[in-house]
């Protein structure tokens, strides 16, 4: 089904032709089976499931009537491997290769296979609203034709043919889209700054260094919708006037690297990247840069240093990358999810987007819902949904009859939301109001068996080991805070340590050079705010109410000989 593009043809027409051809081909089949090729399902063995499905299709003479494709994530990661059958919209979960004959035999029947069926009319699906993940797994992440046939690249063509860069920026600004990386800065304003900045060339960087432990939203977008991501990046490049882009992907996501690289090659083949894109004067190309395991590279100046081949250490801002970024040139940095929103905004218009969400937080947010929750997986919800709805309606509540204790958002930079705030609206301002952050979208649910001091210690250890070491407050402060938390969980801390803890948190927060250090005390401050009694029980009563910490009040030695192969 490879399509060769004759040079003479007009690109736009050619794209439409590709779409038609693809649709035509598809329509020859009565059924399309999409086997999820996302990391979660792959890990659960979806590749062999796909092979056996194809085999059964061929053997049983279904070839020509039924096509098996690699597809994307439906969000029910815990149910992998999942398979979606179109046009019936039947979702099967926990498939094994042995299930293939049954599935194929059942095609076309009224009732889906009971034992594998995962009904999609449940709150898990009904309460979600999908923009970023709109293709809902029903597109092949490795074939640009499939993406185009599903309506892909229309937005780019619309942008470059029908809109000026300024109009694109205005549209994005009007949509109210805010950066999905965590800080929530207005995307349109950022684009405008880069567009206006003096300096040439300009760069666009897609931040795919999703480093929060417990977050995998961006990976899913890169794995499943790499073309959509590229389309968003390309529109951005057009708007700000950039000629070169980079997708910075963390090394832990080899599949994302492969998929995005593949997508770049295919987009280049169809002249959707490269010189004179879609027959216009707009030139833009993209390279993948693979990170190497450093959380701090999620910080934009550190990420730039990393792309430049240096240690990923941040530098003071201003100047912001928008005016002096990569190689000192104006640089637009947005996160994966932000770019993935762009095509939908251009296609459906700013007003449509702005109608979703809250007054100040527009659109949807993708969360990785994990921890002590019945349906863990990837969800996309309109901004402003309450935490209670996410946890109890979509997530199906807490397993094993346990009690909800807290939900953690924003990873090591975020905070814990206690039971009394379950009805909080999930938007930037509300979360900040109770000392947490939206963050990139990790949402970890904890039940009564979790010790909040231990959780604070966990995040502080993370920040300590991920601190780049450049500025003193973060380098030494995180180590000192970690030491106090460690002593608390061992039962050797005193009340004066608690005082010192607060003093150190205040200092690290206000004096650190970059966001990592400034936000590092957040989990501690947040747990101190809502679960101070737990700290006191550890310190005064030498008791861990959740039974997690083993308290033995002998003095502990700091630095239990950390060694590594490095």
């Amino acid at each position, binding site marked *: 089904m490879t399509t060769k593009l004759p040079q003479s043809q007009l690109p736009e027409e050619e794209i439409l032709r590709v779409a038609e051809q693809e649709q035509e081909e598809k329509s020859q089949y009565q059924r399309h089976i999409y086997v999820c090729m996302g990391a979660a399902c792959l890990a659960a063995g979806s590749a062999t499931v796909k092979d056996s499905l194809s085999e059964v299709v061929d053997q049983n003479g279904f070839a020509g009537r039924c096509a098996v494709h690699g597809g994307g994530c439906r969000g029910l990661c815990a149910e992998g491997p999942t398979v979606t059958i179109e046009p019936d919209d039947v979702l099967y979960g926990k498939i094994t290769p042995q299930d293939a004959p049954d599935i194929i035999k059942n095609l076309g029947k009224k009732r889906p296979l009971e034992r594998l069926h995962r009904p999609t009319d449940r709150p898990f699906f009904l309460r979600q609203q999908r923009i970023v993940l709109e293709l809902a797994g029903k597109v092949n992440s490795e074939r640009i034709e499939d993406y185009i046939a599903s309506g892909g690249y229309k937005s780019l063509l619309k942008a470059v043919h029908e809109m000026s860069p300024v109009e694109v920026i205005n549209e994005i600004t009007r949509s109210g889209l805010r950066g999905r990386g965590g800080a929530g800065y207005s995307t349109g304003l950022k684009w405008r700054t880069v567009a206006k900045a003096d300096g040439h060339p300009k760069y666009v960087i897609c931040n795919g260094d999703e480093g929060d432990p417990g977050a995998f939203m961006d990976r899913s977008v890169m794995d499943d919708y790499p073309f959509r991501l590229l389309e968003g990046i390309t529109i951005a490049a057009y708007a700000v006037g950039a000629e070169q882009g980079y997708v910075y992907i963390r090394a832990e996501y080899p599949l994302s690297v492969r998929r995005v690289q593949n997508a770049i090659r295919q987009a280049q083949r169809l002249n959707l990247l490269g010189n004179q894109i879609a027959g216009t004067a707009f030139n833009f190309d993209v390279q993948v840069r693979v990170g190497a395991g*450093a959380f*701090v590279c999620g910080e934009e100046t550190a990420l730039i240093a990393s792309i430049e081949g240096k*240690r990923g250490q941040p*530098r*003071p801002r*201003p100047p912001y990358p928008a005016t002096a970024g990569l190689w000192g040139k104006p640089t637009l940095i947005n996160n994966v999810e932000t770019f993935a929103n762009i095509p939908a905004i251009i296609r459906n218009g700013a007003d449509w987007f702005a109608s979703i969400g809250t007054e100040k937080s527009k659109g949807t947010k993708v969360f990785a819902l994990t921890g002590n929750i019945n349906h863990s997986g990837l969800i996309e919800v309109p901004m402003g949904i309450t935490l209670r709805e996410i946890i109890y309606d979509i997530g199906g509540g807490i397993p094993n009859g346990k009690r909800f204790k807290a939900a953690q958002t924003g990873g090591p930079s975020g905070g814990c939301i206690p039971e009394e705030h379950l009805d909080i609206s999930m938007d930037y301002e509300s979360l900040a109001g109770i000392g947490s952050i939206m963050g990139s979208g990790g949402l970890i649910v904890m039940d009564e068996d979790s010790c909040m001091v231990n959780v604070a210690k966990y995040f502080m250890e993370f920040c*300590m*080991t*991920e*601190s*780049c*070491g*450049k*500025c*003193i*407050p973060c*380098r*030494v*402060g*995180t*180590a*000192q805070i970690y*030491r106090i938390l460690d002593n608390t969980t061992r039962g050797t801390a005193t009340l004066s340590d608690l005082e*010192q803890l607060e*003093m*150190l948190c205040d*200092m690290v927060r*206000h*004096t*650190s*050079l970059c966001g990592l250090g400034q936000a590092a005390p957040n989990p501690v401050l947040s747990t101190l705010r809502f679960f101070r009694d737990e700290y006191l029980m550890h310190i005064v009563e030498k008791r861990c109410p959740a039974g997690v910490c083993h308290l033995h009040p002998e003095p502990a030695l*700091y*630095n239990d000989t*950390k060694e590594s192969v*490095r």
Partner: protein
Amino acid sequence: MSGVVTLKINGIDVGAQENETILDVARENDIFIPTLCYLEGLSRIGACRLCLVEVKGISKLLPACATTVAEGMEVFTDTDRLRKYRRLIVEMLFTEGNHVCSVCVANGHCELQTLAQQHEIDYVSLPYLYPQRTVDASHERFVFDHNRCVLCTRCVRVCDEVEGAHTWDIRGRGIESGVITDLNQPWGTSVTCTSCGKCVQACPTGALFMKGKSVGEMVHSPSFLTFLAQMREAKK
């Protein structure tokens, strides 16, 4: 050509060139702002956070060494809050390494010691971390005592930016990081070191010193850097 701006530092009206930093202007006006990683003639990295100042209307504290002045800016360099933070930062440096002034070559000529005196640190309230660090005395003329290193990277920068050898860099990260020579080898075996001694002069503490110096005998004099920087500027 750069224009002239006026701003207020600690309530005093001062004039400045628009491309100057807050630190430059403060020093011109004899307003003291503590620094450690800053050294005239080297790039400004804003890493030690001692020169943080408050600027009216900006919620974040800004590093005076790396923040350019602006018209109408109101800067405060010596508030209670800043003093509290600075004191804690200096204290943390004492806990991070193994600093024993009384046996140190730089005793009496040490910027860290001076900072401690300026911030009236007569005791350290935080626990010492006692890292296991070594002394590299393999160089013919100089010694690097990693116990006294505060990771200001002045040596790294002077070697890269002024001498052009880039013998030094930083290994690892966070609390585990440290200054290295070439491929983390003994200084004396470095193939890039020119033995110029600029790093030794740039060091604020007793981490880098000349061999044979006894306690209190290492006096650093990095002022030559200003001249070198000016000469280079003039040649351009």
